């Protein structure tokens, strides 16, 4: 705790964040309270900001490290494809972060599932950690009864710095654009019900008939989405009269067998064009409206790699998650700090010639209680940190 004193002193103008318990990590803070005066004619929508690279309007995905990887955030009008991990635990978590961020920023939501009810996903949204300066926490006296390590909340020597947050080692943008969520708690019902949410549950919309040759599920979904966009005024063609808002679209597990196509079932599927046509139509719909979509896909079931390649090309941003659960990597000591690996498959170049790829190609993620952190995976060699240092020192001699 006391080894970050220099950094903390330089950030003394930060707002104090009071939290109920002693977390292991704290929030990153603004370096200054300086606000730039903008003279742009852009309509300012809450929860968005213009990109510093190409001026696109960005929204946060809910995961700050992911925002950093995607170049600051998700551009409005684009699609993020998440290739699911084997048991769909972490991809579902990122979808929930995305929807929770929409609730906190007061955007509207559209959730479509084939397997579960959309309400199941909505009820599992993580609770946001809200800064509350007006709630000071009483300082605890450090315990004298033989406890070797003081709790983080009661520093004996550097007690002036108790309430200041620690420096983050994970990737993060410098400004406070996204929010943080506590995974162990679910979002309270009042906050969740304040957000307007449109649901699409496949069994309600499509009555399965065995004689149907063409797939109706994707076209029904596209029609429903188009109708919502038009009715609620997210179209860019609509007159810019009242305040605009963003529609966040979350599509869970597209391409799985429950949507009716056999992409995941056969090596040479018959319905290869159903999902690709849908993604093409989805992207066209999003480009002409103020919406952003996150699509999860069980890519580990799709055997045709060429099809997977064309699906990736049809989405703007694409990441793939590989969790260590169940694989032989789980017991590998090199990976003991992380829950899985993350691959950035594609980053878009919108209105520019070249895209901003992340610096590090080897990324690993870890789901902590208050943060989903994505870090460059530090490969320490076969012997670990100490041995490597000793060996390099010997070489220097």
């Amino acid at each position, binding site marked *: 705790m006391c080894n970050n004193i220099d950094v903390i002193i330089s950030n003394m*103008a930060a707002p104090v964040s009071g939290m109920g318990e002693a977390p292991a990590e704290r929030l990153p803070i603004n370096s200054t309270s300086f606000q730039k005066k903008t003279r742009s004619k852009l309509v300012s929508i809450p929860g968005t900001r213009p990109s510093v690279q190409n001026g696109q309007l960005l929204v946060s995905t809910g995961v700050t490290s992911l925002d950093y990887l995607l170049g600051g955030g998700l551009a409005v009008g684009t699609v993020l494809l998440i290739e699911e991990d084997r048991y769909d635990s972490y991809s579902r978590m990122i979808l929930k972060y995305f929807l929770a961020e929409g609730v906190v920023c007061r955007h509207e939501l559209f959730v479509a599932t084939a397997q579960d009810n959309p309400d199941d996903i909505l009820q599992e949204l993580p609770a946001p950690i809200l800064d509350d300066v007006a709630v000071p926490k009483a*300082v605890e006296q450090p315990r004298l009864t033989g406890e070797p390590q003081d709790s983080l909340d009661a520093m004996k020597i550097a007690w002036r710095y108790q309430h200041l947050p620690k420096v983050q080692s994970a990737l993060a943008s410098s400004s406070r654009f996204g929010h943080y969520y506590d995974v162990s708690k679910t979002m309270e019902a009042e906050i969740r019900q304040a957000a307007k949410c449109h649901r699409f549950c496949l069994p309600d919309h499509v009555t399965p008939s065995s004689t149907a040759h063409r797939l109706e599920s994707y076209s029904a979904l596209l029609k429903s989405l188009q109708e919502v966009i038009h009715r609620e005024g997210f179209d860019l063609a609509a007159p810019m009269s009242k305040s605009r808002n963003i529609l966040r679209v979350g599509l869970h597990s597209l391409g799985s*067998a429950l949507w009716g196509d056999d992409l995941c079932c056969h090596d040479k599927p018959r319905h290869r064009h159903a999902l690709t046509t849908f993604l093409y139509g989805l992207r066209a719909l999003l480009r002409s409206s103020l919406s952003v979509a996150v699509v999860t896909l069980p890519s580990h079931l799709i055997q045709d790699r060429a099809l997977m390649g064309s699906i990736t090309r049809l989405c703007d941003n694409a990441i793939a998650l590989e969790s260590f659960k169940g694989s032989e990597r789980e017991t590998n000591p090199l990976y003991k700090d992380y829950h899985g690996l993350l691959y950035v498959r594609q980053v878009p170049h919108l209105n520019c010639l070249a895209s901003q790829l992340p610096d590090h190609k080897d990324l690993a993620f870890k789901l902590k209680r208050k943060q989903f952190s994505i870090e460059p995976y530090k490969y320490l060699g076969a012997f670990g940190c100490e041995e490597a240092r000793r060996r390099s020192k010997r070489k220097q001699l």
Partner: protein
Amino acid sequence: MLSELLQGIETGGLLIIQDSCSYSGRDLLRSFIAAALNREEEVHVLCFDVSEDELTDGLKPPATQRLHVHNAYPDPLGWTDHPAFAVQQFRLEDLTDLVKQASQPKPATLVIDSLSWVLRHAAPPAVCRTLQQLRKGGAVRAVVALLHADMHQRGTVGSVCHLASSLVAVAPGPKGNEAVAKITKRSKSGKVAQDEETFCITEDLTVAVLSRPSSLPEAKPNGSEEEQADPTANLTFNLRLSESELEAKQKLTLPFVFSKEKKTALLHPGPGSGRILYEPDANDDYDQEDPDDDLDV
């Protein structure tokens, strides 16, 4: 974990036993049937692979009153005029009618032997949809199915197992009648538990779990803290503190230790981040309108 699964599957659960030609999972399936019957549950069995006698061999009479076998073995594709059950009837409406006809109020457990037969003759997406609807609907409490993994493409097996809430993959064990089961259990909240056990099945269809292999991954975050090297070990001088020394160290008052009230006052200064404490001194009495302020009167 195998014994927990035998004691009961949660409502709305789908258990898939995945086997191959090197070890048949049918005995394990029959022990699941026996366990469900012993728990006083209604069990409906769709029998495709083997004959009814072979499947119910070893099940005792008082329990078999609650067992309803829909025998599709003689005529699975409905070539005769009156099949008992045909593959085409593997649909939500027909299965719900079948289960409700037994006219018991409690929801039943549906056992399918085997799902591979159905997957050969019906489209996998339709089978997946039927299984999902069976889980959500009220007529059937839980579904247990046997799947021969080497009979289908990897994508088909993967899609069906993706739906499962529990998956037991059996393989031949080290000794003759033993087998190894790899169990994966997924909960609604996304947590996944995995286990690997060796078991064997006795004559009266009870499962004896023999041993747990030692290669269990323990990915607990607390464990990593203990594995860090202890810097106070292997030194020529003593860096550790005894209990009395620790107490004395904590009792020591540090030079800039303030009282609790002063600490809280300094930590929570109020709306302004800095307070300027100013006591006006004599020079501040200067009054602009009275130029004779410097006269000492």
